[in-house]
């Protein structure tokens, strides 16, 4: 066998590195598209119905929500009457709560961010930030004609306790189909499923989301979006303390 020429070796490495960088870039582009699809990709106003299933009870909430399509959103509970008036304002990584009974708003401390949102399987952390894009390195794990699967592994020092997240999306539209969170022992601990997509200027927005706690049997949360309007102009005043307390008109 002829010895490999140094030039060829260097060329091969360069090709490999370029391919890797390209694949990485592709994975990052895909995850960005998936998240944009998941969030609607642009400003919007919605009615959200959330049903929380526990082994011994079931509770339902109706909320209105506005979002600027990026990192700002306002959610207000309108039913049941017992919880009506509660509101949640997210700006970047900051989250404020308003309690109508106390007539007080407070900024959620970091210690409260993993608390359950209205007793559901969704945490306040899920409401704020775009941690899937910022905290993980994405790689394409597999691809078929119908679906593409990405594996997200935490970056160094990234503030996540998960070992990896596996995201499955439609191979054509990159509409998110499923996100499975794994612990560091390769055990699935949480699954989020997406369905009932609507087209929002080319983005596939899921209007039905199910969050399943895989560690506690029978615990899941179902979220349905209705009365949605995308690409609307959301006033700046909707993302303020006044809107948190008295609503966004």
């Amino acid at each position: 066998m002829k010895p490999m020429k140094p030039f060829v070796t260097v060329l091969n490495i360069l090709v490999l590195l370029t391919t890797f960088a390209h694949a990485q870039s592709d994975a990052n582009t895909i995850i960005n598209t998936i998240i944009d699809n998941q969030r609607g990709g642009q400003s919007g106003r919605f009615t959200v119905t959330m049903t929380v299933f526990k082994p011994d009870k079931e509770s339902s909430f109706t909320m209105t929500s506005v979002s600027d399509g990026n990192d700002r959103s306002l959610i207000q509970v309108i039913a049941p009457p017992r919880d009506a008036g509660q509101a949640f304002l997210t700006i970047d990584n900051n989250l404020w709560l308003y309690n109508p009974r106390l007539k007080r708003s407070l900024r959620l401390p970091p210690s409260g961010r993993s608390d359950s949102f209205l007793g559901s399987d969704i945490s306040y952390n899920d409401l704020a930030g775009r941690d899937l894009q910022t905290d993980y390195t994405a790689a394409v794990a597999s691809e078929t004609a119908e679906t593409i699967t990405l594996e997200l592994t935490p970056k160094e020092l990234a503030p996540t306790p998960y070992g990896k997240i596996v995201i499955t999306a439609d191979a054509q539209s990159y509409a998110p189909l499923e996100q499975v969170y794994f612990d560091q022992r390769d055990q699935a601990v949480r699954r989020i499923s997406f369905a009932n997509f609507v087209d929002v200027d080319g983005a596939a927005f899921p209007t039905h989301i199910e969050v399943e706690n895989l560690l506690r049997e029978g615990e899941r949360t179902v979220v349905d979006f209705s009365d949605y309007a995308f690409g609307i102009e959301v006033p700046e005043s909707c993302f303020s303390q006044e809107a948190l307390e008295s609503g966004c008109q």
Partner: protein
Amino acid sequence: MSATTSKPLITNQLPSGRNAGTASLYRLAWRNIWRQKRRTALLIIVVAYASLSTIFFWGITDGQVASVVSNQARFLIAPALITTTRYQDDLDPENALPDLAFTAGLNDIAGVRGSAPRIDFPALLRSPYTSETALVRGIDPALEPQVSDIPEKITQGRMLQDRGEVVLGRELAESIDVRLGERLAIDASALDGPQAAGLRVVGLIDSHIDAVDQNTVLIHLDDARALTGVTTATGVALDIARGQEKAVAARVQEQLPEDLGAYDVLTLLGAISQDLDNNVISMIPIGLLFAIFAALAVTSTVLVSVMERSRELGMMASIGLAPGRLAWMVVFEALFATTVGWLVGLALGYSLNWIFGTWNILGPIFAAASDSFSSYGFGDEFYAVSKPIYALYASVTILFAGIFATFIPARKVAGLEPVNAMRDE
């Protein structure tokens, strides 16, 4: 030959009448206690045991306090800590040290053996399964071993070396279900907003002290700075020899800028320190019970002695020794025997305390006997303490023995009818 006949009862030195010297009574009482060697030996053993128990009891009681304070100093706080005065009122990172320039000459102050900067701050620890709030400590891995024994108690993994690592108390790790080598997310409220980091668990601490094993979170000082926004430290821990904390902290205080304070471990413990003092005070009734039981044993033995000697006591009274002086003689007998027992007890008690204060014999026994010891903050090291005042505590037995002997056997002797007494067999 019977012990009762080993020495003559009545000699030419027998005091007579009310003018007889008290010194003669002493001599007579002293001679009498050695006439009944077995009974006197029993008395001495009882009192020696009571004295030994009293000294050992207080050695252990004070040893408990010393153990808790020592563990607080070596594991939880520090022998002494320098912070801003504001920080002592409000343990918030915004009250951190303004700069660390003062640390340059710290180790030159007499009594300061080492120093290490720290950042303490509240945070949320998240695993995939649960979350828990904790007080996180940012440390310099190179300096911390100078002021803390925690690095020696890392039983799995290793001590921190670099950023991105965390060392946890074993029980805390179990409660949030995170294992060695796994990632843990930490959320904190920084001076300029929320911050978070994911750190890998590199070591688990098993100190057998609940407060340490259930609460300790050590991260690199630079990670703590990133999470809190504090660029200096919330405090500088000092290593000081045990027992010198207060004096050395006072010396350090003289060298510090006005808005900084040097606080010794007992000052930092505050209410806990007061609780420990109260616990010691609450032990006083138990110590008194020891003394009372021993004195009662002495009294009953003396009483039996008096009853057995009715005939000879009656004879002594009949030849002129007044009943009152006979009674004093009995009291002196009780006091002499008790004093000898006390001295023997002192020697044995202090020897025992020295042994248990030199070698960690009780720590492993207590740790193995019950988990509750770890909840009190004892750990697996426990040393007895010796203080001169224990001799005084033990002498309470003599006091009680004197009082009881005065009221019971001595009164019986004082009421003796010589004629009737001499008829007794």
